[in-house]
């Protein structure tokens, strides 16, 4: 950042704060423009510079963000766009948004480094797409207006479509099309749900809600309308519409089938971004929209959502076990992992929500790194089949060390990041039962807002927890085959590219840079920040947990209002059910 801009004159500082988020979107876009008009040779370096600049700006934003007030939206700024329709480009970030923006910014330069030698054709288009993707992802996280949100949300698809269809593997066209249509279909339905809420809010449905009389698409306003003035059945439909888009994005079972296909076909950086950030658009959407807009409905349907998550955890995990393609294995593991993430959301208590949001970040770090490692291996061997390769630790000790490290982060080894989030998700699910308070299970006590209330419980936690065993199974079997064991290289592969005797592939991959057997300094540079983050967040997650306390408490308060915890002594499940039944027939404000 230019020191002039950050100069401590109050005007400059407030101006910077005002435009901070706008800059976070605009800087990658500006660099995309620069890359588009720079020679192919400099495209890489320019893109790296662009992502680094965005990263630096993010660091400034992180430093200026008031973390003690994480629930409040900061750096708010509105740019009027279509005032007559109430549409504006309005931005603001709470701590959840900030952390996800930080994750996006961290993965940016790492992905550029990972694409350094892998992308040799149409370099400019590649990096232009990539930078636009960065901007769109940041846009999703900072949007405070549903139209702006939706535009960014959909705009992630186009560059991703380009990345997969142009630089993917053999089935790239099919994968890209499936990806695009699958997620696009879902998110259009999401838009319908959001617009429906705006429609109600504008008072366009006489007899339902008087409304404000004018259109607005501000998330904050719509959230109040949706959560307070909609009946349970309205909320349920809105929830279904929202989940149609978000569940596909996450992806939840059974709408996950686009993911393994897209991941296996995408270029390495595409997979990293897909797993690291794009999937989080779904979970972020659930946290930001589905829960606050439809708290009653979400609470009501939490067991259904949790069941889908648990099926995803076990189903995805077991499928991982029989994969031969390493990348497909990691892709399916995302289905299992994101199951934990949404399960934490469905728990609707502090532990579950904290765990879930942490999971978004942690999964981005560890799975992103695993995709990087698989990509580095693929660049050297041109195969990802566990039948053809094995025992790479003998050839690539540094790669193997990183692999084991990130696999351990991924299986949730305590001391690394994955454990903290996974444990909190499981604990949250375990707690989330009304029966703890009613004494059915022997511990009569009071319901504790944000902890022991809900309609999940230990059985959900137990079954989901068995996914931890499955995770150890498939990941360690993969490590046992690929990293350890006797060295096995594909036939015709005369050793890594650095070796002298390597002539055969010279012509076939003439444009390809020569890579040494083990990781290069560039590749280690890409992996090291992720490794450090995994370790630090595993040992010292306290700053993250306290940063997330605000938004999580706010959400839990919302849920508790919706839950209307009955006074101790009354059987809460029945009361809640009765509440829901009355809610179904009359608008909520009447029942209060």
């Amino acid at each position, binding site marked *: 950042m230019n020191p002039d801009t950050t100069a401590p004159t109050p005007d400059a500082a407030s101006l910077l704060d005002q435009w901070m988020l706008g800059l976070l979107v605009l800087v990658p876009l500006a660099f995309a423009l620069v890359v588009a008009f720079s020679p192919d040779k400099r495209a890489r370096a320019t893109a790296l510079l662009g992502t680094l600049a965005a990263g630096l700006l993010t660091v400034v934003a992180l430093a200026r963000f008031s973390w003690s007030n994480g629930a409040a939206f900061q750096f708010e700024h509105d740019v009027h766009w279509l005032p007559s329709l109430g549409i504006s480009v309005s931005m603001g970030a709470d701590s959840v948004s900030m952390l996800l923006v930080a994750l996006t910014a961290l993965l940016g330069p790492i992905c550029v480094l990972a694409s350094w030698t892998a992308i040799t054709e149409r370099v400019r288009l590649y990096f232009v797409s990539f930078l636009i993707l960065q901007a769109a992802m940041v846009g999703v996280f900072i949007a405070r207006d549903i139209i702006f949100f939706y535009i960014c949300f959909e705009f992630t698809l186009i560059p991703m479509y380009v990345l997969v269809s142009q630089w993917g593997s053999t089935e790239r066209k099919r994968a890209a099309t499936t990806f695009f249509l699958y997620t696009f*279909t879902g998110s259009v339905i999401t838009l319908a749900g959001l617009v429906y809420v705006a429609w109600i809010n504008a008072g366009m449905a006489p007899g339902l809600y008087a409304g404000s009389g004018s259109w607005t698409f501000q998330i904050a306003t719509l959230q109040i309308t949706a959560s307070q003035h909609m009946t349970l059945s309205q909320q349920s439909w809105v929830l279904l519409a929202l989940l149609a888009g978000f569940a596909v994005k996450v992806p939840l079972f059974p709408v996950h*089938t686009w993911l393994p296909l897209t991941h296996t076909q995408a270029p390495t950086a595409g997979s990293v971004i897909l797993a690291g950030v794009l999937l989080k658009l779904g979970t972020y959407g659930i946290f930001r929209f589905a829960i606050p807009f439809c708290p009653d409905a979400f609470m009501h349907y939490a067991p259904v959502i949790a069941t889908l998550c648990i099926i995803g955890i076990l189903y995805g995990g077991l499928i991982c076990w029989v994969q031969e393609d390493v990348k497909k294995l990691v892709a399916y593991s995302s289905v299992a992992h994101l199951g934990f993430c949404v399960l934490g959301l469905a728990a609707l208590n502090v532990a579950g929500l904290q765990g879930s949001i942490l999971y978004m970040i942690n999964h981005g770090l560890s799975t992103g790194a695993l995709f990087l490692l698989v990509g580095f291996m693929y660049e050297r061997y041109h195969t990802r089949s566990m039948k053809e390769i094995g025992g790479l630790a003998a050839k690539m000790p540094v790669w193997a060390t990183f692999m084991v490290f990130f696999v351990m982060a991924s299986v949730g*080894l305590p001391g690394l990041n994955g454990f903290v989030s996974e444990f909190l998700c499981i604990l949250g699910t375990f707690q989330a039962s009304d029966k703890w308070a009613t004494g059915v299970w022997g511990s009569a006590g009071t319901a504790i807002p944000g902890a022991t209330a809900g309609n999940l419980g230990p059985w959900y936690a137990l079954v989901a927890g068995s996914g931890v065993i499955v995770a150890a199974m498939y990941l360690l079997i993969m490590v*046992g085959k690929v990293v350890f064991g006797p060295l096995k290289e594909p036939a015709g592969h005369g050793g890594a590219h650095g070796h002298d005797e390597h002539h055969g592939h010279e012509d076939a991959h003439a444009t390809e840079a020569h890579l040494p057997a083990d990781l290069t300094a560039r590749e280690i540079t890409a992996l090291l920040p992720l490794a450090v983050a995994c370790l630090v967040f595993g040992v010292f*997650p306290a700053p993250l947990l306290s940063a997330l306390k605000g938004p999580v408490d706010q959400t839990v308060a919302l849920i508790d209002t919706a839950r209307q915890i009955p006074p101790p002594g009354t059987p809460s499940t029945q009361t809640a059910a009765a509440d829901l039944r009355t809610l179904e027939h009359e608008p909520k404000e009447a029942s209060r």
Partner: protein
Amino acid sequence: MTIFSSLSMLAATAAPKPMSPILSGPPEALLVLALPILGVILCTLCAIMRVRTRMPAFLTVGCLAAAFAITVGLYLKSGPAPVITSGFEWINLSWGDSAGENSPFHQFIANFSLYLDALTVLWMLFVTGLATLIALYASEYMSGDVGTGYCRFFAAFNLFVFSMSCLVMGDNMLMLFLGWEGVGLCSYLLIGYFYKKPSAVEAAKKAFILNRIGDLGLLMGICLTYVHFGSIEYRDIFAQAQPYIDAAKAGRYSEIPAIVQLIPVLLAVGAFGKSAQLPLYVWLPDAMEGPTPVSALIHAATMVTAGVYLVARMYPLFLLSEIALPLVGWVGALTALFAATIGMAQFDIKRIMAYSTVSQLGYMFAGLGVLTSTGAAFHVVTHAFFKALLFLSCGAIMHGFAGQLDLRKLSGLRRMKGWGIVSLGMLVGCLNLAGFPFTSGFFSKDMLIGEAFVTPGTAPIGWILLLTAGLTAYYTFRVFFRVIVGPVHYEPGDELHSAHEEHAHGDSHNEHAHGDSHNEHAHVEDDHQHHDHGHGGHFHPHAPGWAINTVLLTLSVLSLAASGLYFVPTGVHGGAVPAMVDRSSAAYQSPFAHHAIPEGAGDGGHEGPDHAAETVPSYVPTSIAMEDPHAVEHPHENAGTFLGWDPHAVLFYVSGAVGFIGIFVAYVLHYAGRTTAATARADALLPMLGPIPRWAQHKWYVDEFYNLVVRVPLLALAHTFHLIDKLLVDGLVRMFGAIPRWLGTLIRPTQSGELHGYAAGMATGIAVLLFIVFMLTLR
């Protein structure tokens, strides 16, 4: 810096809790954790700088010795009550209204803080002490791998000590879990140390996955503990559990909710996994694929006792359940017997030791189950010494004979030059394991068996343990009589062709500093593709050097000296170690204990002013002890007897006799008249037993059974899911895409682009959905 910063914060949050104040512990305890981490960092640096000397080993020995010294300091300082050394914040959450903040149930706290009581210190003493000795041993044992492998080994070794310290010293269950899984990781890394060997990789994987099954139980136990007691910090749990403890003391188990009684059962599942008990024991014998120092430290002396530690640490909760301790006791006893039967039929001496470890761990669990936590802990300590000694002796043999471990191919080591100390070590270890009178193993085992007969209803466990003691003596001395004594005969193992060759390959461009004859020999053999290298020939065993001999000698002395602990007058039956246990949360004075107190009880000379077996600290542990001052003098009327005698008075002789019988049988069958290494008189007996020896040798086909019952169905399920995913779910999605396309083709046959089909389907879907939504909401 940060380590100490949150101290004040912790104190603040701790203040409103309803509990007796707990003193803050010595800050240097944190160094016990920091030093092994320093070792990890130094070893990693060595790897990065490509150090090709034994530097990592000596850095490790230095770090661990310092940690041991600090632990000794902690021991000297330790008082009767537990203390807590605050570290830093790990996972802290809080919720609820402001009124409820800072009370249990409204916050979740898991800090990097240490809970130091006598149990902690006891465990840390032998963990750090043995780790130091074994690191010294490994400096020589692993010298064939000097280079990156050497650095990797010692980094994992240090990481293990760190994890084990977290497990033992953590002040909450989640930190215990951190260590619990951490030791699992190190075990994984070290079993798979020879990572090119498929069997080693397989064994490492198996260990980790089977442990994870137990870990799930532990995790659920932690969740349940939290939900029920509102905290996972030991001090709070014990404080919260006090009403139940009182109820349990009075035998009013009906007042304890079933859910609370479930907690210890879940924890026990975790303990069975980590400590290799039925039905999760199968990983431990395979874990012998790791280098022998690892087997000695991790898979014999320390890590596998973590389950015993868990039960001992959470003993107050185990006492709340009517089923938990009987479960622990029976599982332990059956494991002891079962593993012993397998151990009798094995030929690989390291495997025999592995099965004996499983068996001895069973003894410890049985001890916990029959209400002698002191006996169990004493057995942990004595076992740690003599089993480490046995493993390290086996390791020296393996090292010297190129990986040979088959007792049919080794004989008469005692008479070979340079093998005196190894033979002595084996003898001392075997005597201890067999429970030869006046060895430490004899006393600790006797405490367990005796208590099993004293505690009402557990006499069957006592009989099983007594029978197993005989079997143990037999298979232990089977090894001794075959390998150490008898005619001199040996064949080298196959390591000439496998492990060493690989290492040579791995470091081929680097000349080893190690010029051992057998290593050079290995190269020669490889070059000539020479397969009939056995039968003496030009193979020269490589006698251990100073580091191995020093460690073996030290451990021999310590294993013998450990029996002295029994006689230390402390007022507690069994001497110093049980006295330490009595000052911890594991304290439990059996109401049926009526053994005579050794002379000079109550002097407390050894324990100094801290001696407090009778002074019950204000908070929990010893308050569980039945506060019946007459229990000692007057035998409890319900106390069991051994065939009408006082078990503790007569079992000294009985178990001694059983041990003698076992040794004598081994002498007759495996030593008397034996002229070759391969055969002994026992072979003539085998046909009489039918297929039983073969079944035992094949470990009763348990692995095959698990494979058939668990793995195969799961794999089938996985394949089915994969198929479903490929066909059904994907097909369904395509069908949804295809229907509009099909409709489209009906309407406009010219159009058949896939994109259009999807788009049409999408638009239709949206339209239908919006229609439904509006219809429903507008009604």
